[in-house]
Structure formats: C-alpha cells, structure tokens
C-alpha cells in the first residue's frame, strides 16, 4: 500500500471516527447539561453540520448528473427520461437562482407541477390500500384471523351508523386503541430506541460494517 493510500485510508477511517466521537460527545453534553460554552460549541458544530449537508446535496446531484449523462450518451434503457430529468434539474436551479426561491414565478411553477402531482398520487393511495387489504384479509392463519377481527371491529365501531345508534361504540374503539394498541405501539418505540442507541454505539466503536464500510478502504 502506497503512502498516499495509507493517508487516504487514515483520513477516511480514523478521522471520520474522531469527528463522529467529538460531535456525539458535544451533542450528548448539550442535551444533558446546560453550559454557555457547550451551547456555543454545539451551535458552531450545527453550523458545520448544515454546511456538510448542503455540500453532500451537491455531491449527490453531481453523482446523479454523471450517472445520467453517461446513460444518455450511451442511449441506455429509458435514456429520454434521464435526459428530461437532467434538463429539469438545470431549469429548476437556474430559475431558482434567477428569480429567487420565494418569487411568484418559482412558487407558481412549483405549486402547479410538483404539488399537483403529489396530491394526484396521494389520491390514488386508496386503490393501493384496497388492493393490499384484499390480499391481507384472506384469512389463512390464526394471526391473520385475529388481525381481521380487530380491523373489522375498528371499521364497524367507527362507522357513522354504529356511532349514531350505539353510544358505547366509540368508547370500545378508544379502549382498543389506547390499551392493547398503545401497549404494542410503545413496545415497538421503546425497543426501536434501544436498537438505535446500540447501532450508534456500534458505529462509534468501529464495529458497524455497513454504511461506513465504504470508508473502510
């Protein structure tokens, strides 16, 4: 391994880990203790964080630009869509820089294209729900049977006709949501929190070989 490779590996592994440890200790100290000095340090690190996030956004865009340009030049599958995406990326950047993000022109273009399409897709979700429900509610096992009973109970108990004719209906549905439902949901949240902390500690200890393995040389 050449000297340059060794330096590169050191920067990508050791330095990355040192930066992670420093920022984590600062964030933890700022969360649990109050101190003007720690608050100032955290504010400055947050500023750096913002800069890095902005920088990674550009790195991502550059990666996409090169990847799509190559696809277009080689006329690979779906290249016209990629060309269209490249043109749109440039158009939106130029328009934002020229007229400003909060200008009428930019906002109108944004609302009349992106938001309209977003709402259109959101409206179609009901069809996906129905299709998924059809498959899920074919009772094949005891577990799916229990699921169907409770799902149907919630639908029936919350329907207007039941609510208007049976006063206890919403109390039963709230009980189901606030007791067995809430208990299960909190178990998932608590365990997920523990899992997240342990994953963070694995990263700090250099054991995690996933996302950071790309920096492992």
């Amino acid at each position, binding site marked *: 391994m050449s000297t340059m490779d060794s330096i590169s590996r050191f920067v990508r592994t050791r330095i990355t880990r040192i930066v992670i440890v420093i920022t984590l200790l600062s964030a933890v100290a700022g969360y649990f203790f109050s101190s003007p000095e720690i608050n100032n340090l955290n504010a400055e690190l947050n500023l750096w964080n913002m800069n890095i996030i902005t920088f990674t956004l550009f790195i991502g865009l550059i990666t996409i630009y090169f990847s799509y340009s190559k696809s277009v030049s080689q006329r690979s599958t779906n290249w016209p869509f990629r060309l269209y995406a490249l043109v749109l990326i440039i158009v939106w950047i130029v328009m934002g820089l020229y007229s400003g993000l909060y200008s009428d022109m930019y906002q109108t273009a944004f609302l009349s294209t992106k938001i309209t399409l*977003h709402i259109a897709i959101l409206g179609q979700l009901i069809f996906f729900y129905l*299709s998924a429900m059809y498959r899920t509610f074919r009772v094949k096992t005891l577990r799916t049977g229990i699921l169907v009973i409770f799902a149907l109970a919630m639908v029936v108990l919350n329907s207007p006709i039941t609510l208007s004719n049976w006063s206890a209906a919403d109390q039963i549905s709230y009980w189901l949501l606030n007791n067995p439902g809430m208990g299960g949901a909190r178990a998932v949240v608590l365990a997920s929190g523990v899992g997240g902390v342990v994953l963070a500690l694995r990263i700090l200890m250099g054991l995690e*070989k996933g996302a950071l393995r790309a920096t492992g040389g």
Partner: protein
Amino acid sequence: MILQIPLIEQITPRAGQMFNLAMLILSGVLVYLSYYLAKQGRTWTIRPMEALDAIQEGIGRAAEMGRPVLMFPGIGNLQNVQTIAGLTMLGEIVERGARVNVPVNTIPSATEIVTASEAIVRDAYNRAGKPELYEIGKYVKWFGTDQFVYAVGGAGHILVEKPAMIVFLGYFLADVLVTGEAGSRVGALQIGGTADQSALSLMAMCCDYIVMGEEIYAVTAAITEDKYQIATIASQDWFKSLLIVFLVAGVILTAAGLKSLINFMWW
C-alpha cells in the same frame, strides 16, 4: 474559521435528564461488556429470523429465475439511523448477489444516499472479487427525493425490471404501499423492515416477511455474521430486560400509590 474548543467554566445538569443520562451510560457499558465477552471467546446464537432466511432464499431464487433483486433503503437521509441500517443491509445483499451473479439494484431517495449507495455497491463488488462488474449508475437508480416521486419511480422500475426479490429496509411512510403493491403484482418475494409504526402496518399488508422495530438493527448485525456485531445484540436484550423490570415495577408501585420510581425517573 477554525473551531475553538472553549474551557468549560460553568456547567449545570438539566432538570429531569439525569436518569436518561444514567441509562445512556448503562447502555454503553452493556454494549462494551458484550463486546469484551465476545473478545474473550463467548459466542451468542440468534433465534432463527424468518426474514433473514428469506433474504438468502430470495437471492438463490433470483439466480435461478435470472431476475434481479431490488433494495429500497427508504426515504430518510443519512442522519436517520434506520437509513444506516438499510445501507448496511444493502452492502450485504449486493455482495451476496455479486457472488452468484445476481444484479442488485437500489433506489435511494435523498441525493447524499445516492453517493453513499454508489460507494457501498462498489465496495461490495470489490469484496465479492468482481470489481469489473461495477459501473456507476448501473445499480443505483434515482427518481427523486420527494416521497411519492420516489414511490412512483420505484413502482415503475419494479413493473419494468420484475425483480425476483424486493427488500425494504429503512425509514418509510405511505410510499411503501405503492412500491409494495407493485412488487406483489410482479410476484416478487418481499421483505420489509422499518421502525416507523405507520409504515409497519402497510408493510405487513404488502410483504411476505416483516422485520419489526428494533429487529431491523438486529437483522443487519446478524446478516454480517460478525461475532462482535452479534454480541452487541445480546446487550440490546439485556437492556430490554432491564426496561421490562422498570415497567413492571412502575406498574406495581404506581398501583400501590408510591411515586418513588416515577420521581427517580424525573431526576
């Protein structure tokens, strides 16, 4: 601007946070203890996880069918711990796929995940001893950062490529229903995992196997077959046992009218 680390002159603990700090330190101690025991030769076995076996089976199925595998790391960015778990899984699946010549495509959402995914895929091909098969843009597809642009792009990709297996692991919301349903239409084996509760129920409707909550962190450690990573899962279980003790004690003491444990937790 050079970062100046100041001398700390005054520091006061935040009210009600000291119990949380103690628990954080304890979790760190338990993780280190499990790591130390693993270094001393102690090994742990993980209960069979259906999803983990299904991933191995799915790669074999893809090889037999001559179809690709698709992996979704979700709509989170690099600051989301679920995304980190998804990227860990991506590296492992790509490497296993590369060994048997199964292409594994991935569709990230955030632009920084595109860059990270390219690096992870390239690294996985190197580890599999087939660096010549890696090509920028060949395996990492990007349709947009918006939740539903991501979903519709992913669904379109599924309908065209017809993957044999689709793995969802990371942070998802209602978008998973669109891609999951498209996956069901093409008959893909689907494995979903997230810690987000709203997406979990949608995954349960679309996927053949689901990985719930903290299992996503356990499954990503287990798939690596690294004894130190697996050891940390043991510490996760020790900590959960402690939480159960706190929960039971809290219920009993509160029912008895004693607030000592609750007051201690607000220390």
